[in-house]
């Protein structure tokens, strides 16, 4: 082999980074460095792709847009009009989402210059926060379970039970605020914990798969909800409908800016903030959270390191369920103040949205905050879009789903944007498979 002189070896280079002027090379290197492996960039691009996907849906389903394109079959001169109509429709839909969920710039300018109409101007952002608050809490609960390698599909049912328990404490006891509100919050947590403990114990001691148990448990809770709102102690007195008692003013989470402002955003945001801090401490700073993460990442190593796997499962389900229950209570205590038979059913099922929110937020507390705000904004703004442009609210759900799809397939996103993987980058999945 030694007879092969190095000079004979064909030299070639296919490193694109080495080409082009210095500035281009630098930018390209920076681009690669900051984009290739950062999950935040992937999430942001997934959101962007979701919006693009939504735009395509709007363009291909809105009758006005389709009519404009159909006209170019009669004469090609209709093309510029068709393009304009397309962009107008997409633009007005997204503008409606934005002004309906964040702020209307015109109204904002008006309020700023005249000092009037602030409540109206702030209503959209207030609504977004109102919807995001319980979503943050329940999603963090789901995210903590995910980080431990556990699927809590039953967060919605836990939130329902938490809501019922909290609303019961809030409506059937009569105490001063300083006692009543904490007791109500604890009632919500306790209800969710109770509901989460059962799947946890079953998983830890019998091996029953938590996905099946928690999923099925949701239906049990819905049945209990209907029973509760129609049964004597909890049903609204003098009502025959499926409505529960109204909570005492001493037990509710009052609006931040007073009842007169009409803004619904409540003191619940502080509860959510406390949960975020708690989750950050738990996952990043506590030795218990360290055990959780070790268990989630490698159960065999967890066992060899002396971590009691059964205890971890039960404790995680208590925490996850407790947070879900708290979220359900916050939902009631900051909006309707009573529970009805449709509580958290169907589209309102924040416990199910939480699964996708946790995924989008990569199970990290702050990531979940951003993801919740985004999902809440799409939901709230979508309603405004439906009202002002006639495009159905379901589009918001389509966009949410598309975003989750893109987040779940980082390889696809990287391919679309031609992001190169860093040498040591490994695909990190936010969740694990069912196998464990």
């Amino acid at each position, binding site marked *: 082999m030694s007879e092969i002189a190095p000079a004979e*070896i064909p030299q070639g280079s296919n490193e694109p980074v080495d080409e082009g002027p210095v500035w281009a090379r630098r930018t390209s290197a920076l681009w690669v460095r900051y984009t290739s492996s950062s999950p935040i960039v992937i999430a942001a691009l997934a959101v962007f792709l979701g919006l693009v996907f939504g735009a395509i849906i709007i363009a291909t389903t809105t009758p006005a847009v389709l009519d404009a394109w159909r006209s170019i079959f009669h004469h090609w001169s209709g093309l510029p009009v068709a393009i304009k109509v397309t962009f107008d429709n997409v633009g007005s839909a997204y503008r409606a989402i934005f002004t309906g969920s964040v702020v209307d710039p015109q109204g904002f300018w008006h309020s700023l210059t005249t000092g009037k109409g602030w409540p109206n101007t702030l209503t959209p952002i207030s609504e977004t926060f109102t919807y995001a608050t319980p979503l943050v809490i329940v999603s963090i609960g789901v995210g903590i379970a995910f980080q431990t390698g556990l699927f809590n599909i039953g967060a919605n049912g836990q939130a329902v039970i938490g809501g019922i328990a909290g609303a019961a404490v809030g409506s059937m006891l009569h105490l001063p605020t300083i006692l009543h509100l904490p007791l109500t919050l604890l009632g919500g947590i306790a209800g969710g914990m109770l509901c989460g403990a059962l799947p946890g114990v079953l998983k830890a001691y019998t091996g029953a798969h938590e996905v099946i148990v928690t999923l099925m448990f949701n239906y049990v809770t819905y049945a209990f909800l209907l029973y509760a709102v129609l049964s004597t102690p909890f049903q609204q007195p003098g009502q025959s409908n499926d409505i529960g008692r109204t909570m005492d003013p001493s037990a509710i989470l009052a609006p931040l800016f007073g009842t007169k402002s009409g803004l619904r955003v409540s003191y619940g945001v502080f509860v959510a903030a406390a949960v975020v801090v708690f989750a950050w401490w738990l996952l990043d*700073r506590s030795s218990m959270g360290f055990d959780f993460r070790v268990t989630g990442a490698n159960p065999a*190593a967890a066992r*060899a390191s*002396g971590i009691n796997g059964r205890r971890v499962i039960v404790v995680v389900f208590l925490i996850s369920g407790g947070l879900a229950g708290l979220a359900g209570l916050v939902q009631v205590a900051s909006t309707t103040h009573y529970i009805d038979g449709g509580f958290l059913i169907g589209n309102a099922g924040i416990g199910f949205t939480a699964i996708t929110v946790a995924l989008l937020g990569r199970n990290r507390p702050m990531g979940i905050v951003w993801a919740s705000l985004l999902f809440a904004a799409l939901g709230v703004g979508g309603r405004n879009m439906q009202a002002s442009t006639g495009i159905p609210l379901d589009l918001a759900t389509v966009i949410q789903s598309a975003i989750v799809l893109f987040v779940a397939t980082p390889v696809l996103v990287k391919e679309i944007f031609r992001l190169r993987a860093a040498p040591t980058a490994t695909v990190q999945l936010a969740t694990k498979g069912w196998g464990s």
Partner: protein
Amino acid sequence: MQLELRGITKRFGSFTANDQISLKVEPGQIHSLLGENGAGKSTLMNVLFGLLRPDEGEILIDGVVTPINDSGEAVRRGIGMVHQHFMLVPVFTVAENVVLGFEPKKSFDRIDYRAATEDIRRLSQEFHLEVDPDAVIENLPVGLQQRVEILKALSHDAELLILDEPTAVLTPQEIDALMDIMRSLAAAGKSILFITHKLKEVKAIADVITVIRHGQVVGTAEPSASESELASLMVGRDVQLTVTKSTYDPGDEVLEVRDLVVLDDRGLVAVNGVSFDVRAGEVLALAGVQGNGQTELVEALVGMRPVVSGSITLKGRDITHLSPRDALDAGLGHIPEDRQRDGLVLSMSVADNLVLNTPRRAPFARRGTRNLAAVKENAQRLVREFDIRTTSIEAPASSLSGGNQQKVIVARELSRNIEFLVASQPTRGLDVGSIEYVHRQFIEHRNRGNGSLIVSSELDEVLALGDRIAVMFEGRISGIVDPTTSREDIGLLMAGHTTEVAGV
């Protein structure tokens, strides 16, 4: 088939895994590719098998430049690969696995099992690869499964066989059988590219040895070269292959095991009434062919497997039925057999892995809150003291080479002030440099007056480390001998003969 690689270069980002590698394999030749873990052997083979595209260089088959773009093309060109981890379907028979993807067909698209079976019989006879075509893979021992992989490659008319670390999973007897197969294949004119980091095997079988280090060819050697010459080529410095120990001066008994009975996962008796003592300042090496109860014995010692009967006593304290946590806290250190499964969390940082089983202990935590400064300080100190090669203490453990991953575990256990070390296959799959390092750490631990039980299926390791050697066979200790005993006698004990018969 004559195969030539010319100037193969493969980069991953800024890291060059293969740098201008050239080598030539002649027909009927056994060509050994020797290198440490992470030297770039597997990358080169993946390039050759079409799984990776080289950035530079070319592959010549019988003197003709032949680009290989995917593994299907490699197979068509007559290149067969036997991976370190077998690619077999466990519930299928040998015949089904061999024809998988290339099934001979009868009418109505039915698989012609008779033709498949006949084909395998013929190949088996031709190359002396005895295996029952109707046996189900999961019932076969590892050595036979490997034969099926080789048969599979041969059934595709492979002229060049790539064997990637084929001996890593085999018992000594199976290794001998594999060597015979390799010789008969070479005699039949097949070329073999044999990838390994084990010096003894290279010397035993290779016609030509190419040594690579850091992705470059650093030299070629004849099989007559001494082991220490090869080792120093591999690691780039002189390596001490024997361990220097201070004189054997055992103290009191530290660990006493009495009549221990432990079951395996299937509920069968794996450890059948084992008794032994280990004293302070002593290494008891536990030899034996794998699967004779060593794994279950170790798991029982560290609390990971329930003890049916018998007792374990550590410094006078009964630790028979402790949980893993309590066993760790009682002063047992454990270096698990499967380091990636039981010893590390690969996705977590080196720093976190260094406190994996002491996250709650001072100074790493106070009242449930972790002290990350102490964790970091601990990591920096251990990375320095134990020479763990990592880009950062925050890097995930998965980014480390196998040897450095093991150093993380060794550092964690030995820095924990343990009374007794239990190490299982501590140097399996490690390169010579890391082996030397790990052995030195064990001996220092012993010289400080601590007891150790070191389980290994490598006889060299057992002989180098052990102050006394216990041999395990079918769940029992067939004998405890001193390290001057000949290899042959220990071999007899490993085969189940008792000390009287073995004459020691």
